[in-house]
C-alpha cells in the first residue's frame, strides 16, 4: 500500500515570496491533516479536513496560509507571503479512523 506522498521535499524561498505544498493521502483515508513542525518542537496542527470539509483550522494563520482539499483527495497548502518564522517542516498526514495518523515525508521549507 502506498504511503502519504508530499512534494516538494525541500523548498528555499525569500521572505515575502509565495510557496505551495502538495499532499496525496493514503487511498481511502477521509481525514487529512497539515502540521507545521519547527526544529526541536512537536508538530503543530494547522488544518484538518474530513473529506473536503474543514474540521479544525483554529491554528492556521489565515492572513497568510490557505489550504484546500478539492474532491476530498489531494490537498494543497499555500503560504503567501512567507515570513522568516515560517521556516519549518510541513507534514501531511492522513487517517482512516480519525485516530492513528500516517505521516508523509514532509516538506522542509527555508525562508531567507
Amino acid at each position, binding site marked *: 500500500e502506498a504511503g502519504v506522498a508530499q512534494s516538494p521535499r525541500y523548498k528555499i524561498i525569500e521572505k515575502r515570496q509565495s510557496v505551495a505544498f502538495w499532499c496525496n493521502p493514503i487511498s481511502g483515508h477521509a481525514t487529512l491533516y497539515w502540521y507545521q513542525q519547527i526544529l526541536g518542537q512537536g508538530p503543530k496542527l494547522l488544518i484538518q479536513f474530513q473529506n473536503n470539509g474543514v474540521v479544525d483550522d483554529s491554528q492556521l494563520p489565515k492572513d497568510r496560509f490557505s489550504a484546500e482539499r478539492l474532491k476530498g483527495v489531494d490537498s494543497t497548502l499555500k503560504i503567501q507571503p512567507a515570513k522568516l518564522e515560517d521556516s519549518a517542516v510541513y507534514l501531511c498526514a492522513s487517517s482512516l479512523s480519525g485516530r492513528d495518523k500516517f505521516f508523509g*515525508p514532509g516538506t522542509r521549507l527555508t525562508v531567507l
Partner: protein
Amino acid sequence: QQPVQSPQAVILREGEDAVINCSSSKALYSVHWYRQKHGEAPVFLMILLKGGEQKGHDKISASFNEKKQQSSLYLTASQLSYSGTYFCGTEGRTGNQFYFGTGTSLTVIP
C-alpha cells in the same frame, strides 16, 4: 493545552530500560504515542483509549491513567533502533482537538 513530557532527553545503554511520561492539564479521551527519527516523519506506535488501559508490542508498552490525565511509555531492554524523539499526542473529551507533546529525545548507545 500542549501536553508536557518528561524527561526532555535521556541517554541509555543497550539493554537498559526507560520510562517517558506525558501529562495533560485537560481531561483526556485518548493518548497516542509516536516515534520520530532524525529527518524523518513521525511513526505511529500505539493508541490508548480507555483509562487504565495498557498496550504494548515487543518491548515497548504504554499505560494511560485517565484520572491523573497522564500516560507513560515503557521501553524495556532498549535497542539501538529505539533512538529517536518520542511524542505523545492527546485528544480531549470535548472535541476533536489533538495536541502533540513537547517531545522526549531518546538516544541508545552501544
